[in-house]
C-alpha cells in the first residue's frame, strides 16, 4: 500500500498531465499486478504455478532431440511444470521441410528411437506433397511426435515437436 502511494506521488509529479491521467485511471489492481510481476523470475513463477507451463526461447540441453541449427529464424520451448512430464518445442528455419525432416529422422534413429514414418500416400491426406512430413518415435517410456511443415511467413519450415514421458 505504501508502495502504491509512492507510485501515485511519483506519477503525479513527474509525468505529463495526459500520461499521468492515464496512469491514474489504471486500477490499483493493475498497478499492483504489474509491480508484483516486474521481474522475469516472478512472471515465470506465476506461469508455472497458475498455468503449469514454463516458457523459454531456447531448447534445454537435455531435450531428447537436438535443435536444428541451420538458418534458424526463431525457436520456442515450453514444458509442463505439473502432472505428466511433457514438453513442446517449435523452430522456424528458412530451410525446406524435407531437409529438416531428414535431419530429425536421422537424429532419432541415431539415438536408437523406434521411429515410425507415415507413407507418402498417408501424408497426402493431410497436406500437399512436399509440404509436410511427420514421424513418431518411442524409446522406453518416452515418445515424440514431430512435424515439419511449410512455413508461409518465412517460406521455410516450421518444426513442431511434442515430447512426453509416461510415468
Amino acid at each position: 500500500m505504501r508502495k502504491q502511494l509512492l507510485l501515485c506521488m511519483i506519477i503525479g509529479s513527474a509525468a505529463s498531465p495526459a500520461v499521468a491521467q492515464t496512469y491514474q485511471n489504471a486500477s490499483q489492481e493493475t498497478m499492483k499486478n504489474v509491480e508484483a510481476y516486474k521481474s522475469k523470475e516472478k512472471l515465470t513463477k506465476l506461469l508455472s504455478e497458475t498455468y503449469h507451463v514454463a516458457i523459454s526461447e531456447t531448447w534445454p540441453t537435455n531435450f531428447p532431440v537436438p535443435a536444428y541449427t541451420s538458418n534458424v529464424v526463431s525457436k520456442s520451448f515450453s514444458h509442463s511444470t505439473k502432472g505428466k512430464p511433457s514438453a513442446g518445442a517449435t523452430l522456424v528455419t528458412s530451410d525446406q521441410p524435407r531437409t529438416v525432416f531428414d535431419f530429425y529422422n536421422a537424429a532419432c534413429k541415431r539415438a536408437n528411437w523406434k521411429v515410425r514414418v507415415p507413407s507418402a500416400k498417408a501424408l497426402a491426406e493431410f497436406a500437399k506433397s512436399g509440404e509436410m512430413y511427420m514421424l513418431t518415435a518411442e524409446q522406453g517410456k518416452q515418445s515424440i511426435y514431430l512435424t515439419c511443415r511449410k512455413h508461409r511467413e518465412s517460406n521455410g519450415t516450421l518444426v513442431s515437436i511434442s515430447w512426453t514421458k509416461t510415468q
Partner: protein
Amino acid sequence: MIIFLKKKRSRGSIAFGAVLAVVLVIIGLAFFALAMYMGGQNETKNATDAGMLNVGKKVADNVSVPIYPTPNELIFIDVANDTTSGEDLLASLTGGISDLKEINMHRINRVWAKALQIGINAEAADRDGFGGSAKSNAQKAFEGAQSISNRLADKLNEKADRYKYFDELAGQNSVRMLGTDAKTRALQGDNWQTSLLERGRESNVTVAPPEYSMPPNFQMPNLVMKSSRKNVPAAAKDFWFLSGYSPIKLADRTFWQIPYVYDETPHMVSGTEFAANTLKAKPIDWEKPIPNAFSGEGIAVAKSSKAPGQKAISWVLTNPGQTFKMSIPHSFVRIKLDKMYSHWYFFPVGPQTKVEYGDPQEYKYQLDTHNGPKMPLGGAFCMYVQAGEVEVGGDVLARNLDQIIFGLPDKDNEKIEAYLVNRANEMIGKVGKVISVDELHDSLSDPLTILYLLAEQTEFYMFSADGETIEIMPKYLALIRAPWLLLKQGEEPDGTEMKLVDDADCPAVLLNKVSAKPLPKCILLPPTPIGWGLWDKDVYWTPGSGYNSCLGNLRVKRWTEIYSLGIAFPSLL
C-alpha cells in the same frame, strides 16, 4: 406169478417216470416263467431308463417358450439363440416376432444373466450418483426375464411333452420277455414329478473375472464360483460360473440360475436323491423354479396278454451341455467427439487475470492456421496486444481414436479404461474370452480411425459383431457390420453424464508470435510480449444399463487455449 410181478413193477416205474417228468416240466416251466418275469422286469426298467434319458435330453432341447413382443421381453432377443454374438439377423429385423426366438432350458440362464448384467450396470450407476432411469429399466429387464422364466417353468411342468419324449425311445427298447408284441410306454400319473437337484452347483453361465465383468467401484461378493466338479476339465479351470438354485440378490430383486454341472450330460439319479430335493421336500424362495430333474414311470404290456404288465420308475437329471457367458451381445458404447475450438486469452489487468477475447475458432483433425485477435488495452499499460497467426490442431493431427481419447493432455486415463474395458467385456459372449486393456487400446488404435477423423466422422460405435472381438467404427460402417444396430442406433444411455477427466492440460506445441504496443511513456516489460498455448481435454461418461442396448456414451471435448501476454510499465517509474 413171476411174470405178473415183473409186469406190475414195470407199470409202477412208468407211472413214476411220467409223474416225475410232469413235475420236472412244471418246475421247468415255472423257472422259465420266473426267468421271463425277471427278465421282463429288467427289460422294462431298461426301457424306462432309456425313455427318461430321452426325456432329460428332449426337455432341455425341445421344450421352449416364445419371447412375447413386449418391450420388456424383446430385449432378450439377442440371448434367445445359441450363438456368442447373439446374431440372428432375420429375427432381429422382425423384432423378435419370428418364432425362431424361443427360450429353452439351454438359454434361460442366459436370459437371467443378461437381466442381472443390466441390473448390475444400473446399480453401479446409481451408487455413483448417475443412475438416471437405469434402475427403472433394470426392473423392467428383471420383469421380462421373470415372465419368460415363469412361462418356461409352466411349460416344463406340463407332462404331455414328457410322456411323448418317453414313448419315443422307451417303445423302441425290447421287452420281448413279456411277449413278442410287448412295448413300454409312459404310465401317466403322479409318478411323473420334477425336482431341483445339484443346488449350489454351477450353472451354464460363466462370468468374466470381476475386474472385467463389474463396473468400476462395484462389487458383488460371492456372485461367482469355480466348477464344482471333482476333476475340473482343463478347459474350465479358469472359468467362473454363476451358481444354480442360489438366490442372487441385487437391490431388491432376486435373480436365479439353474444348475448344470460343467461338461456333463443328462444322466440317471437315485430316487432317494430326487425325492429329497423336490420343491415340496426342500423349498426355495424362487416362486416358479425351473426344475432340472424329472421322474417318470413306464409300463410294459403285451397286446396279446391280459396280464397287468411290468412297471418301472426312473429319475433323470438334465443338462443341456452348453455353456454361455453372461453378456449383452447386441450392445454398444457410443464415442462422441465434440467440435474443437481455439480460445484466445489476454491479460488486460496483469498476468494474474486472464480474459477471453475474440470468438473461438473451430479446428478439425488437421493443422490449421488461426489468426489471433487484437485486443485493445489487452495488456497492462498496453494500447493493444495481438496474438499472432497460430497453427492449431497439433494435438489431433494424424492421431488415431485411442490417442484422441487417451493422448496428451492425459489425466485419469485409468478411469476411462475401467469403464470401457468393463463395457467391452459385457458385449463379449464367447466363454473364456476376456477383452484386456491392451486389446481395448489396440481396437481404438486402428489406423483407419485417423482417416475417419480426417473425414470428420466424430461419432463412433464400439460393439462386437462376432461375440469374440470388439470393433470401433463410425456409425455408417457399424450399421453395415452389425445390422442389429439399425434398430438401436438412436438409443441413448439411461444414466446421466459424469465427468471422468476434468480439464486435463499440457503445454501446446504452437508458435504464438505475440505483438503488443505499450501506452505512451510506457515500455514493455521483458520477456513480454510472450505467447503460449495449452491443449485441454475433458472426458465425460454417461453410463447405460444396456436395457436399450446402449451401454454408455463416452464424450471427449478437446480445445486449445492460446495466451498472449503483454505487460508494459510506465517508463518514468
